[in-house]
């Protein structure tokens, strides 16, 4: 899981830098397949690899690690956050009348759970 999260951060930083996998991998001296496997979390990333990537993408090392540690710790809390933000996102896409219906439904559910 750690590698998957670090991999996601690498992909994010690479895309922000406007680089393709091919471009970044050639700068790092990796094959494109290796970089792809790192981004997907399939290959084991050593600290030295992460440092090299961080240097190339001008990011501090902890950019790749902090989120990872939080996710590793949070686990279930994170899932709850994801549900809440998914609800928020979907709600905003609904017309106001529908949102009101949903609010009433939530109030009804809450009442029932008491």
């Amino acid at each position, binding site marked *: *899981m*750690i*590698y*998957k999260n670090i991999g996601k951060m690498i992909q994010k930083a690479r895309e922000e830098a406007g680089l393709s996998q091919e471009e970044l991998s050639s700068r790092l001296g990796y094959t494109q397949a290796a970089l792809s*496997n790192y981004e997907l*979390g*399939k*290959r*084991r990333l*050593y*600290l*030295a690899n*992460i*440092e090299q990537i961080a240097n190339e993408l001008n990011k501090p*090392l*902890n950019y790749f*690690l*902090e989120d*990872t*540690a*939080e996710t*590793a*710790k949070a*686990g279930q809390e994170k899932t709850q956050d994801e549900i809440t933000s998914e609800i928020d996102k979907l709600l905003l896409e609904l017309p106001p009348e529908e949102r009101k219906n949903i609010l009433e439904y939530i109030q009804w559910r809450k009442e029932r759970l008491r």
Partner: protein
Amino acid sequence: MIGFDLTKEQLECQKMAREFAEKEIKPYAAELDKRPETAFDWNIVRRFAKANLLGLNVPKEYGGLGVDMMTAVIVAEEIGAACLGIMSAAAGNWLATTCLKHVGTENQKRRYLTRCCGGNALLAALAVTEAEAGSDMAGIKTLAVRNGDHYILNGTKIFITNAGLANFYIVFVTSDPKKRHSGLNAFIVDGDSPGLTLGAVEDKIGLRASQVGTLIFKDVKVPVENLLGAENTGFLIAMQTLDMSRPCLGGAGVGVSRAAYEIALSYARERKQYGRPIIENQAISFMLADMAIEIEAARLLTWKAAWLIDQGMDSTKASSMCKVFSTEMAERVCSRAIQILGAHGYTRDWPVEKYYRDAKAMAIYEGTNQIQRMIIASML
């Protein structure tokens, strides 16, 4: 392609480890287990050193055997079959050297990895656990404060294998407890550092030959060059080290189970009741069949995790799976072996009760099996 043939080198290492375990460990296992108080014996360390097994996974350029993970788990199975307690001393080294070889600088590796190799090899240890930081590593309170060209360490580590015996420790500390995971750091600390003392030594139900105890750090000065990896990367270093050491536990679980199974099998063939060997009763033979199935399954899962590591792939899930399955299997198999031996199995005249007590520890140390399940579940 899938193949289960071991290479020539792996077969040679297996043979070496089996002979070593039979000759140098097994004959002392019962005696050390029965010794009152702490039973740790330096002669065992010397035997391991003579075979260079304390430097099992240290690259050859630093004087170790430099074996791959697949070979390491095969060796762990052989030594685990002889005595898990005695094996713990060497396993402490394997943990520390695994960590050091992956994140250490060239200078750190030259200075410390070499100490674990050759005929005069010394012990090493990894120190993570604290009173309030076991499964939750981010709860670590041992504090490292920078002061010029060194750090000052203060805190207490508990349940440390090879505590008070190791030449150096890899110690996980925090630079700021509020930062939790993101404040963790790993340091190499010399065993004879002023201010570092041994606290209580644990009296355990099993692994009697292994010394596990408390380490107290009081204003211990550690030079800046002994920081492992970059600042605040201790969490990644710990996770990576444990992922890569767990398959050896899987191998050790297979080993102790194999030993219990072999005793139960030969006993069941010889012990006669109602005029025939008890193995002729389906109730007994099915128990032995189940033991054989589970041992084989655990071995395959362990080999898969080791193979992934050797391929440079992420082995996190497989490492945790083999740790859980193999260690719980070991407890079941050893328990069944006692059952097959009946009252004999429950006495200290036979080794199976010792195997059972030793095996229990494996479900607890190096990340409890509950933590392993959390890791696996998070990756489903």
